[in-house]
């Protein structure tokens, strides 16, 4: 495949701007002679057809949710409803400038306000900020809120955030950027939170704990309420990493479990597309006592009008310019309205039912290190036994699945499972799709034994074969010449 720089011809042009109709001066007079660059940037010179074909051909090199089953654990690759795309493109939304007056922005502000209320109801929190641009950004925002809370109480010693070893990598990274020291605790033999380890980790330096529930193993932390109690008694706050909230929609809420701060990924649970790596959105909700610390702006409804609230003195400040990824918020709100509470309730039911079906059937051919044949919305298999017996790694199996027309599950995460294969089917897949996937996985397991070399060489039928990732890192070429 050519790069766009290798397409086109000198002097060829696509979109042309209407001619300038104001009297013109020399650019050097307007911009200053010394400020000008000598040559125009070396950009592609293409026709519109060149550009459209190039990017359409590129798109066809991608596997995507709309082309096939994408059981990528922890990523909640559920179907992205098409109507939501259309609604976010309404001119009344996408042509809005963020600094227009309140008077000009009432519709956008109403949507913002109603989405905030909906998320608060779904998660049992007092209020939400919709500013964070992604899950990791939400985590950071939550960590800053926790830091600001302790600071406001002059509790300066609380500098440690506890995370379990099964947590997402973003958890410790976010805590660290917010200025905390990270203490990692080992999971118990059942893969769940070890209350003894937690007890040992807690102390006067504890600022809080970050937890995903269900955990990254797809298991519900049965001792969550005890753990919450312990963290609170030690003076800490409990942070809910909502990456896995698809499993609990309308069944429980983070507040019932005892959490104080929560983020949710709208691009996971609330169906907004992942876009090949963004844009996402990671709103953060808090219990009543933490509301003053939320970042600004917040929107209130007063005397029949939506207004921006005055920034609270305790607020952590601004987390992102303007109002967050508004275009993503429109899609998420459309999803919530399409479902209603009953619909969301069915979402978690179907997601967990689908995962359990796969878990039950696949645990016969692969090792299920944790979970006793049951799971929530996802589960983690281990390929260690297959690797030991036949020399076929989880990576090899993933690449063979690619050959068979699937996006592989998440692999090598969480770190506490060797040769991990993390599978999350989501509620939007049919039983027929699940059955076919089981057949594919069983074939892969069989081939690992019978023809391992086939798996080592996979994939053979895709645009490229396996890539030399070491070469890329050792001698980085990060731009075209």
């Amino acid at each position, binding site marked *: 495949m050519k790069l766009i720089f290798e397409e086109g011809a000198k002097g060829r042009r696509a*979109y042309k701007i209407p001619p300038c109709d*104001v009297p013109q001066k020399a650019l050097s007079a307007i911009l200053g002679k010394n400020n000008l660059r000598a040559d125009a940037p070396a950009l592609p010179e293409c026709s519109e057809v060149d550009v459209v074909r190039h990017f359409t051909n590129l798109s066809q090199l*991608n596997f995507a949710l709309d082309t096939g089953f994408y059981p990528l654990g922890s990523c909640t690759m559920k179907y992205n409803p098409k109507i939501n795309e259309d609604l976010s493109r309404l001119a009344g939304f996408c042509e*809005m400038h963020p*600094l227009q007056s309140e008077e000009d922005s009432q519709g956008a502000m109403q949507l913002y306000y109603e989405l905030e209320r909906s998320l608060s109801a779904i998660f049992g929190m007092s209020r939400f900020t919709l500013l964070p641009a992604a899950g990791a950004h939400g985590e950071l925002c939550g960590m800053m809120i926790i830091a600001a809370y302790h600071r406001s109480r002059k509790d300066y010693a609380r500098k440690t955030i506890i995370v379990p070893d099964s947590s*997402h990598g973003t958890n410790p990274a976010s805590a660290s*950027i917010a200025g905390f020291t990270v203490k990692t605790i080992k999971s118990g033999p059942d893969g769940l939170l070890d209350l003894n380890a937690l007890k040992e980790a807690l102390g006067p330096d504890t600022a809080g704990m970050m937890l995903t529930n269900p955990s990254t193993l797809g298991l519900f932390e049965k001792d969550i309420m005890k753990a919450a109690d312990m963290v609170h008694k030690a003076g800490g706050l409990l942070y809910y990493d909502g990456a896995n909230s698809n499993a609990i929609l309308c069944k429980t809420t983070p507040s019932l479990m005892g959490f104080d701060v929560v983020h949710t990924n709208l691009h996971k649970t609330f169906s907004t597309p992942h876009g090949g790596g963004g844009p996402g959105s990671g709103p953060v909700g808090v219990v009543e006592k933490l509301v003053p610390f939320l970042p600004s702006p917040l929107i209130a409804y007063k005397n029949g009008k939506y207004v921006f609230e005055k920034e609270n003195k305790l607020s952590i400040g601004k987390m992102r310019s303007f109002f967050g990824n508004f275009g993503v918020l429109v899609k998420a709100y459309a999803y919530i*309205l399409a479902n209603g*509470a009953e619909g969301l309730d069915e979402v978690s039911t179907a997601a967990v039912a689908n995962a359990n079906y796969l878990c039950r059937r696949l645990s016969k051919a692969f090792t299920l290190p944790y979970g006793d044949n049951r799971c929530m919305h996802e589960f983690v298999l281990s390929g260690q036994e297959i690797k030991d017996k036949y020399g076929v790694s989880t990576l090899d199996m993933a690449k063979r699945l690619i050959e068979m027309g699937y996006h592989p599950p998440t692999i090598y995460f969480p770190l506490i499972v060797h040769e991990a294969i993390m599978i999350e089917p989501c509620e939007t897949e049919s039983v027929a799709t699940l059955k076919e996937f089981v057949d594919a996985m069983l074939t892969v397991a069989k081939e690992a034994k019978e023809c391992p070399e086939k798996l080592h060489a996979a994939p053979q039928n895709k645009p490229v074969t396996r890539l030399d990732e070491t070469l890329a890192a050792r001698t980085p070429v990060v731009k075209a010449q």
Partner: protein
Amino acid sequence: MNYIPQTKEEQKELLCSVGIEDVRELFDCIPKKARLKALPDLKPAMTEPELIEYFGKLASKNRPAGLCPSFLGAGVYDHYVPAVIDHVLSRQEFYTAYTPYQPEISQGTLTAIFEYQTMICRLTGLDVSNAGLYDSAMAAAETMLMAAGATKRNKIYVAKSVNPELSKVLETYAQFKEIKIEYLPYGKDGKVKIRDFSDGACVIVQSPNFFGVIEDIEKVSAKAHEGKALSAVCADPLSLALLKTPGEAGADIAFGETQSLGLKMSFGGPYCGYMAVREALMRKMPGRIVGQTVDTEGRRAFVLTLQAREQHIRREKATSNICSNQALCALANTVYLSLLGPEGLCDAASQSAQKAAYLCDKLCKTGKFEKVFTGHFFREFAVRCKGASPAKLNSAARKAGFVGGYELKKSFPELSDCLLLAVTEKRTRAEIDEFAERMARV
């Protein structure tokens, strides 16, 4: 409407194979005390036609600047977005894919990001671009953290003339990392006043700055380097079609908002924050980076690389906690730059500069306005309103069907009688003339 394909029979079959009868058993693991007793209080479910009606009503309560002649900028600009962009972004293979962790089936996204990185390097004159960050404010914050890490210093100099949306985010991040921010005042020309930087991790200036004034990056960078501080420039990428690149002017880091390259204003997002650095800083840079390599057949291919910097490998020791990269917005930028090419991009930038200069002259000639700063400006300028107040002018503009400027008193109390006006290539002479006349009459 919940997009679940299972029929009742199929669900029964699923449950049966798991060995349970009632779906509620799936959630037995949730402690009784934590179970939700009643469904959350949400609006009743809507069908597709109802959604269209509801959102249509909400959208119609807005008065979108992109649909009326607008002179509002302040970091977000109403440039024309060619039709092709949305058609490419609507390709499901792009927008319904995840982060390209499996390169063999993600060459589309990876190649596009590689092209994006290349274009950012060519615009900024720097060596390495990442795959994009959430927005320019986030890019500013990451710049601050990167500079503090690289220089082991904890003081950052920031020009007062940086977009306040950015400096407020910087303040938020700084307070938790015990980083001290010192603001640098602006002079009568609107340019930053420089000083000795020998205790600073970096100097962050914006050019064109919040007032539209073009900074002397060479001077700032030289002074920064004299004090062994890094020089970072927030530069609107469209302006770089015409202006000396940050790289050429000696900056170590360039970042900014790519909204002006083919992204709709969308009430503030999603946008994409670009970041480019000199090679020496490559392994300290946050965010995803795509690199070139070969497959087992020796064919050129692309892959996420230098991942040893990132959170999923390094956890709390990572250079940043960032995970996503606004890939779809970066794709829009890539398509925009491909469509306009060098000539088109220079045209868009130069028309914006010409039309802004034209409006500025026109307003000043009325005698009711005067330029606040003497420095050269791009696309945007501040005027002192000698007659009616900025608020009154904006309200008159609104009545006349325009969207007026940014009232500088919101962030700069010392400029309480000043208005910041932006003009893009989209504005016609007729619109500019009428706007100027209306403003002179208030």
